């Protein structure tokens, strides 16, 4: 195993066993050494007692996948062996807590190396508590995998410094016991060398939050909902530093409308939720469309329908975010990875102001909650552009018209407060001044005329978005003339890439067509792209091919072959490779 460039590690136990903190210790040890990590967190909708695991794929080069079969596992509770031992790579190493797992594990499988650690015996010093068994095992793990244990020891210092020196020392001591034990007892031959560049170890939710800040966010309102809550948690802690308002509201109706109120005032505003909560925002999204108020709405998808699988993966909310009563312009963006989540979030705020319309970011549980290493973001790539927003009008300006009919559909937008140009924005159909036509005019010739100007004006923004190239075409990765194209959208980017690499290594001719901007669609250009491909297979993390249907409805191009996954798990490269092979989708 010594030549391997990557190691897959799995840490498993009950909710409450400290999986997350073990993962953080392990992950940060890696990221600070300059290794690459991609992690996936499997958990349930129970606070304790569920069975939880974290899989981390650590590599000397960028890891695209949390991977399938672990090389090393760390098992913390009774349920763990039966669930995880069957998944292990042959010859793999298993560390476990013998106080919880008493049976002979080789009965399950005899081609692995099992190491049971006895916490009581190894850590019999003062100040220690049994919950620290995960630290002991982590020591053994980190030593065995060949990481720099000094980096870990440093981590304890920072992490617990507020809690006092004793806590730091006890943790270090327990950790060192694990290290010593592993040195004495195990032989893995594994060793991973980082490039020494410190990387960030973060989730998509962190990246979205940071991207919003970088993009000039000033007002964030949300109601907690997994898997979007991480954004609220992140932004709450940054609020004072970044001088922004973060408000947990009474429900999602309030959150979306609060953001709309802030957007109308003239600050950049956003909200985030998951599918069920987004349902409650649908009316507000239409309001923003009608009142032409910039607002960013983030829907972090999870398994549906209804409450569904709150801690599981699905990409099945396209129909939801395309809904609303009547027609209004909108933009839908699905970031492809953690780094992209950062830049797209900043970009979404720009687009919302430029087009004075709702911009929807479709993330998902996998993208939002998995940890991975990323190079520090280059903030200089972000510039804040406010479009036709004005804080004041020049003295003597003509009477301002909030909804002036323009060729590009975008009306100059004056910040409320300016003297002499008061206007009222109404959610009923209105004229250029904002005056309602529904109340006493509807049906009269003048009102019909207004309607026939205002409704197309708003809808024209979608054309402008395309004309001004503000909507990115899908990216093609790999050989242009490949025989098979895997089409994906949003968070599946890395998995599909990984699959493509494997398939190409197997001699197949494949490339990858990936959407991050989902709507609006430029029919002509897209059809050209599709036609430039040979055979396209859509890869969707849902059952009903929602993206393929949107493509068909918007471009007339029909996808006919699909790889779907809707069991609650994210794809993996291997899963896609197998599907391609099984379905004989590619004839090399």
């Amino acid at each position, binding site marked *: 195993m010594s030549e391997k460039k990557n190691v897959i590690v799995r840490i498993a136990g009950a909710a409450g066993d400290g999986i997350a903190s073990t993962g953080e210790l392990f992950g940060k040890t890696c*990221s600070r050494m300059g290794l690459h990590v991609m992690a996936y967190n499997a958990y349930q909708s129970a606070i304790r007692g569920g069975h939880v695991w974290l899989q981390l794929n650590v590599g000397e080069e960028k890891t695209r996948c949390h991977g399938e079969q672990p090389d090393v596992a760390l098992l913390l509770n009774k349920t763990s062996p039966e669930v995880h031992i069957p998944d292990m790579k042959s010859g793999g190493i298993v560390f476990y807590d013998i106080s919880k797992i008493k049976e002979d594990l080789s009965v399950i499988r005899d081609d692995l190396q099992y190491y049971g650690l006895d916490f009581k015996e190894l850590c019999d010093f003062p100040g220690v508590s049994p919950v620290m068994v995960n630290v002991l095992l982590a020591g053994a793990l980190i030593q065995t995998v060949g990481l720099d244990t000094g980096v870990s020891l440093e981590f304890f210092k920072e992490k617990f410094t507020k809690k006092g020196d004793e806590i730091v020392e006890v943790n270090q001591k327990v950790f060192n016991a694990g290290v010593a034990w592993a040195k004495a007892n195990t032989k893995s031959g594994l060793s991973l060398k980082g490039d020494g560049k410190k990387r*960030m170890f*973060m989730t998509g939710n*962190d990246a979205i939050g940071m991207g919003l800040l*970088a993009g*000039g966010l*000033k007002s964030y*309102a949300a109601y907690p909902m997994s898997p979007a809550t991480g954004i609220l948690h992140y932004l709450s802690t*940054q*609020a*004072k*530093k*970044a*001088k*922004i*308002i973060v*408000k947990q*509201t*009474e*429900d999602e*109706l*309030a959150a979306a*409308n*609060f*953001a*709309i*109120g*802030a*957007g*109308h*005032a*003239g*600050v950049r*505003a956003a909200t985030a939720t998951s599918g069920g909560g987004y349902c409650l925002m649908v009316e*507000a999204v239409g*309001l923003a469309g009608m*009142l032409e108020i910039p607002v960013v709405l983030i829907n972090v998808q999870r398994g549906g329908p209804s409450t569904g699988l709150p801690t599981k993966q699905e990409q099945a909310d396209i129909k939801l975010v395309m809904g609303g009563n009547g027609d209004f312009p909108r933009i839908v963006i699905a970031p492809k990875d953690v780094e992209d989540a950062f830049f797209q979030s900043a970009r979404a705020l720009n687009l919302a102001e430029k087009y004075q319309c709702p911009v929807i970011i479709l993330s998902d549980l996998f993208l939002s909650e998995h940890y991975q290493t990323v190079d*520090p*973001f280059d*903030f200089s790539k972000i510039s*804040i552009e*406010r479009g036709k927003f004005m*804080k004041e009008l020049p003295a003597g300006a003509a009477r301002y018209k909030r909804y002036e009919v323009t060729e590009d559909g975008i009306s100059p937008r004056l910040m*409320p*407060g*300016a*003297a*002499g*140009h*008061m*206007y*009222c*924005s*109404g*959610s*009923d159909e209105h004229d250029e001044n904002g*005056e*309602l036509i529904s*109340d*006493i005019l509807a049906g009269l010739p003048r009102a019909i005329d207004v309607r026939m100007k205002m409704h197309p004006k708003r809808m024209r923004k979608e054309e402008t978005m395309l004309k001004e190239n503000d909507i990115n075409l899908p990216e093609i990765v790999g050989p242009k003339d490949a025989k098979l194209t895997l089409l994906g959208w949003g968070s599946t980017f890395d998995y599909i890439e990984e699959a493509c690499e494997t398939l190409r290594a197997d001699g197949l001719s494949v490339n990858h067509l990936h959407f991050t901007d989902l709507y609006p669609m430029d029919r002509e250009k897209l059809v050209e792209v599709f036609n430039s491909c040979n055979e396209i297979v859509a890869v969707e993390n849902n059952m009903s091919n929602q993206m393929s249907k949107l493509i068909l409805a918007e471009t007339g191009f029909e996808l006919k072959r699909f790889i779907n996954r809707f069991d609650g798990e994210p794809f993996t490269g291997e899963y896609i490779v197998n599907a391609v092979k099984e379905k004989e989708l590619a004839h090399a």
Partner: protein
Amino acid sequence: MPEITDKPVTIADYKGDVHPDWCPGCGDFGVLSVLQRALAEMGIPANEVMIVSGIGCSSNLPGFINTYGLHTLHGRSLPIAQGFKLANHAMNVVACGGDGDGYGIGVGHFIHAMRRNIDMTYVVMNNSIYGLTTGQTSPTSGLNMKTKSTPFGNPEMPLNPIALALSAGCSFVARGFSGNPKQLVEIYKAAVKHKGFAYIDTFSPCVTFNKVNTAQFYRDNTYEIEGENHDKTSKAAALERALETDRIGTGIFYVQERSQYEEFEKEVLEKPLVQHELGLSKDLQHKLIEQFV
């Protein structure tokens, strides 16, 4: 001597271009004109006022007054107004709407806005009926009242919005009647002046669909609580009056001096959010990155 800048504010400044389309005799005319008077008398320039409404006859008000206005969704005026206010707290924000809007579909926001205590004013034009949808029962319609949706009589106890507001922790609770503009204008002025969330239930009779709660009914059944030496600093006294069943008090029921929400955010709101520079300092960028390394 300053001339132009100190031009006194007059009611004329608040007159809108659009003629209200309310039915002749609708109580909402009275509310509109009292609101205009209160704002003008306080000397607030019209451009520093944002009026946010929901949907209903009463919610058409922002279209008829020469301030900034937002006429939004049924029941959602309060979250929008709060989002607006925290984004630009230099503006005077007034939310308004009907009893259906505020006590029916919007009552959840009503409760939470009150405990939150953002510095704004909320006027409910209470006509005990759904006017715009042509006369269904509302949360303040009387028990057994016959309406289009309850032809056999309303089976639900009407809400007591004053008691509700008091229980929800509202820091300024009042009630007025559009037919008593003298008292109403003083209430509105005190409300706008109040630091925190000020709420005024305002009887505003619907002449078309509510034949029970008419202007005459309110003239006959209301009394001014300040005439009885009401102690507006006592929540118990306020609740007692709110629960009276034989007569209906109008006036300021309760005023509590407590931190308005904005004080919890004073570092962030040292100046209005809309006046902040956008984008992060290099130093902050660095800090944000460091946290994850």
